[in-house]
């Protein structure tokens, strides 16, 4: 398959950052199309023509459109030359996929709920309510309209927030334990699981310094620093436009 690669993404973070970092690690040059998620760029007709679900990221390769960040990463690894980002051993390949799903579907939604309630919601409440309501009405997926409304109007329930906090704490413990078993998260070499996990966890030392630090989570911190030190990570995070990307700075510090 030949043709230009265009990635439609937001900040190097969560789902957007996964294919971004995979492309850079792989050495694939791509056109970066930045979408301002908090400006609702991803619900405008130009982007809905590419991804009718109105979620970020999406990638085009030649005339083909791809969505679903984790599936895009596997595609990037298979469709382009460059260093392999999946192990060769079938058990290790299974483990990479297992951890990506655990992070994508069990852990990340809890990060999102907390992030949206403390960050996205308050930011939106500074803006014209009529404009925000109109923007929410344009969201194609009904589930996402619900999430946006909960964030904007502060409607997350105490029970679901507590459950999200429980999962984040447990997720940190599970990642720490797994990273105590081997250098990289799911296989002997750097893989898509590390790219995925970094995008989820890179902000933790800055946002939860009491839980994620050299003393309590030495393996998690070691791993985050090792990924941060990779040239691809630097290049990728340079594509960020907001202060979010700055949360990486704490990884510059060396262990005490």
């Amino acid at each position, binding site marked *: 398959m030949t043709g230009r690669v265009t990635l439609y993404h937001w900040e190097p973070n969560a789902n957007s950052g996964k294919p971004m970092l995979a492309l850079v690690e792989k050495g694939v040059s791509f056109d970066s199309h930045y979408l301002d998620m908090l400006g609702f760029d991803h619900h405008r007709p130009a982007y809905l023509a590419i991804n009718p679900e109105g979620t970020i990221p999406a990638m085009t390769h030649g005339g083909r459109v791809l969505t679903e960040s*984790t599936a*895009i990463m596997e595609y990037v690894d298979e469709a382009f030359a460059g260093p392999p980002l999946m192990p060769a051993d079938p058990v290790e390949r299974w483990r990479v996929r*297992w951890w990506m799903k655990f992070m994508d579907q069990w852990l990340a939604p809890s990060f999102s709920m907390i992030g949206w309630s403390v960050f996205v919601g308050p930011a939106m409440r500074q803006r014209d309510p009529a404009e925000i309501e109109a923007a929410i009405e344009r969201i194609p997926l009904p589930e996402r309209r619900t999430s946006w409304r909960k964030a904007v109007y502060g409607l997350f329930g105490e029970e679901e927030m507590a459950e999200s906090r429980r999962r984040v704490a447990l997720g940190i413990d599970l990642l720490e334990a797994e990273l105590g078993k081997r250098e990289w998260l799911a296989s002997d070499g750097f893989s898509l699981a590390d790219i995925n996990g970094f995008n989820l966890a890179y902000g933790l030392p800055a946002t939860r310094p009491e839980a994620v630090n050299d003393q309590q989570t030495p393996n998690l911190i070691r791993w985050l620093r090792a990924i941060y030190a990779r040239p691809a990570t630097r290049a990728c995070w340079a594509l960020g436009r907001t202060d979010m990307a700055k949360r990486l700075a704490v990884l510059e510090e060396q262990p005490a």
Partner: protein
Amino acid sequence: MNAILYHGEPNGPSLAVLAAAFETGVQVALRRIDLAAGERHGGIPGAQAPELDYSVEGEGPVLVVDGVAMTDSVFLACYLDDVAGGAILRPADPYARWQVMAWCRWLVERVAPAAAYLGTAAMPPRTVPVGIANADLAERWEQAVTGRCDAALLADSRAKTAAGVTRVEAQLADGRDWLFGAIGLADFETYGWLCGMAPLAAEALVGRPRTAAWLARVKAHPSVARALALATVPEPEKVWAPGPEINRWG
């Protein structure tokens, strides 16, 4: 390689992995466990791993290979496919493989939780097993056993099942036999979750001739028929255990 597949009755994820094993021809020893009685918890000799306790799939089959306990039916099928050379259950072309993986992601995120919810509501397990490490899975067991079903979630699950069937019908609209090229992962996984839905979400299947014909074709396919023949009950599609959770974030 010493591979043992601990599987439940041929329905849902157990059916998908059994069919995948037979289709690829990878040698695995089969051990039946009662997933609906919670035998996965403590019933897999020697296996202790986060991947067993925190499988997003809930109560699915477990493949133990040389002491490593692996879970999650889509990835177990990928494993079997990788062992067999990588292109029996999925197409060889990267874009066609992306289509299959993106399909399966949608299926397990939207349709599987709905099917498992409807299934356990209709056929609740008898008791909550002891030793469930994962608190949210334990809560899903608790709800299933006590029949604390939420009317809104039941309605939502029927709607999601119907949306799933709508997508299958659309995928088959050009007259193809299988969802993506040759029969494979997407067919087995989709069939596993949908084959028991007729009595539970009848309206979802009304006026869906292509889906009905596809269901019959998959059922008659040799690897699936062989998996179904392992049933120890007359209607394995009615045996359910708590599955993946209903998406808590859009």
